[in-house]
């Protein structure tokens, strides 16, 4: 998709939505309102937004444990996401999923995932579904550099490549795998170099640069949509926060983090570009930021005011309701 000022504003807004949504979620965690693990995407916004800005509503997206950005970029509503983090009944998953399982099937966002590398083959499967139906939907799978070591990477991409399916594999190489620097446990610097094993294109891109990500992903999505098969994209990126909350980050220096925050913030980088191109005025910038702030404040309010799920929700959604007439296992227990 060509870069129009409108699209740029939309993308810029989406990056802010991710940034502020997460910073607020982080704050809510310290207040005790949000519980469980919170894997912050801040710093990586250009990847989700740069990729998803090429997608149609009916395209599929599969995420990771670090998927707030993927969900928001695909169009998920921040208030329902926030409610999910609060464990409320109005959350995207009714409070049953939490941060690691946010999904919005109405947007074909088929879910974050708590298992590293678990989305790759399912994304391939969703692509197979579109091919079988004869639609030209594309599937995108986001995953971390850590996932590239898993067998599911090999098997999942292998099948997508074999059947030339409309799928884009996006590796977010943020150079850390939980608390371990990638190069302590990997032999290849670039994950894109693994594409050769599957005879598909492998591209590495600066994940802090929205324009570049948007372009590289655009080509890949286009190729997929036209029947040209999968692409493996490596977006070199960085997470501004620790792996998840409470991480003491002994494995990296604060200088490194500062340098990335100061000189490679995807939002600031893109703002500069927009200013240079006269796509955005300072007033518009303020307006966007304020509008996003309001949205997030609303989201918190919505989450706070929403009810918790009730005990009867414990046993629903295990199987589809039509089937629940028969005596269920577990009945006798407790």
């Amino acid at each position, binding site marked *: 998709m060509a870069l129009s000022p409108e699209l740029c504003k939309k993308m810029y807004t989406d990056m802010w939505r991710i940034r502020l949504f997460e910073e607020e979620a982080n704050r809510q965690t310290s207040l005790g309102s949000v519980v469980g693990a919170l894997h912050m995407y801040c710093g990586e916004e250009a990847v989700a937004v740069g990729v998803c800005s090429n997608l149609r509503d009916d395209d599929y997206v599969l995420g990771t444990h670090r998927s707030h950005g993927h969900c928001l970029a695909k169009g998920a509503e921040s208030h329902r996401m926030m409610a999910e983090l609060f464990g409320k009944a109005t959350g995207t998953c009714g409070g049953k999923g939490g941060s690691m399982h946010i999904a919005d099937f109405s947007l074909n966002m088929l879910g974050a995932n708590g298992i590293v590398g678990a989305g790759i083959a399912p994304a391939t499967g969703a692509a197979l579904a579109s091919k079988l139906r004869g639609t030209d939907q594309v599937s995108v799978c986001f995953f971390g550099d850590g996932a590239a070591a898993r067998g599911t990477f090999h098997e999942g991409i292998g099948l997508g490549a074999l059947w030339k399916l409309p799928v884009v594999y996006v590796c977010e190489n943020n150079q850390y795998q939980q608390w371990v620097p990638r190069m302590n446990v990997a032999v290849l610097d670039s994950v894109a170099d693994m594409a050769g094993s599957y005879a598909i294109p492998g591209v590495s891109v600066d994940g802090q640069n929205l324009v570049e990500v948007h372009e590289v992903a655009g080509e890949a999505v286009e190729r997929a949509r036209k029947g040209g098969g999968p692409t493996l994209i490596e977006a070199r990126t960085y997470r501004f926060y620790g792996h998840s909350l409470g991480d003491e980050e002994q494995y990296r220096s604060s200088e490194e983090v500062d340098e990335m925050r100061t000189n490679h913030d995807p939002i600031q980088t893109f703002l500069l570009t927009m200013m240079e191109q006269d796509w955005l005025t300072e007033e518009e910038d303020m307006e966007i930021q304020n509008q996003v702030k309001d949205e997030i404040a609303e989201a918190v309010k919505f989450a706070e005011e929403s009810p918790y799920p009730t005990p009867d929700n414990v046993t629903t959604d*295990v199987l589809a309701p039509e089937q629940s007439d028969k005596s269920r296992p577990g009945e006798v227990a407790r």
Partner: protein
Amino acid sequence: MRTLTFSEALREALHEEMERDETIFVIGEDVITHGGPYKVTDGIAERFPERIFETPIAEAGIMGVGVGAAMAGMNPVVEIMYMDFVTCAMDEVVNQAAKMRYMTGGQASVPMVIRLPCGVGRLLAAQHSQIMESWFMHVPGLQVVVPSTPGDAKGLLKTAIRSPDPVLFFEYKRIYTSTGEVPDGDHTIPLGQAKICREGEDATVVAIGPMVQKSLEAAVLLEDDGYDVEVVDARSLSPLDTETICESVSRTGHAVVCGEDSSFAGAASEIAAVIGENCFRDLKGPVVRVGSPHVPMPFSSELVKHVVPEVPDITEAVSRVMM
């Protein structure tokens, strides 16, 4: 009614369902070239060439593709060549397929059938003879089905394919060639229902898979000892039809639970525990399990014959609980 083999019945179910619903597709290793080792998918490539996928050896990939396609609205029927190889795809079955609906608060549906040829067949030893029904019973969100006759095989497979949730479909290799009557027309059997195969008053034998036929044979032998044995085919292990099972045991007062798998922490353990919990006041003897000893499947036929439970093990168990 026609007489078909177990694998013919499965094949018929697949063909009929694929005819009915074009979201159904088949995926697995060697499913085209050979129709799989047991020829269950034979003929599908000819009739539905676009809807059958022969894969490289990548069980996790295959299963993951199934999950994704199912979430995206298709109805995959995944063949795992031998159930033993589902160990290579447990995350996909257990953490993905089983939990998607729940984790997404009901948004996701994973209508997927996982076909698992299981148990001893030709002598292939420890890594090609497992059963493990209880593993999947223990996972909420999965359904576990074990047909014992061609008629049930067809009726249950059709229902399994139509289910909006994942079904683990166990096919005991040893009975693929067994024959039986299969009703004409659109024969379906609801999941979650056990079947009383033989009525009796003195004891209930709850049996799984090929043990049903053996239990029926045992029941005939036990007539000579004056025992009138009821035989219940559990058939659906999850959801388990505790109602039918417990009603029968409460009536007869005696129960033996038979499975071909090791009984230690097996499907039979759950059934025995449920009976013990619900029928205590009516039980006139202990609930005894018949199954394999807790050993991997050996290779030598001379050893195998001491592993797989047979008719005398059942008659012996029934006599024991009646004492």
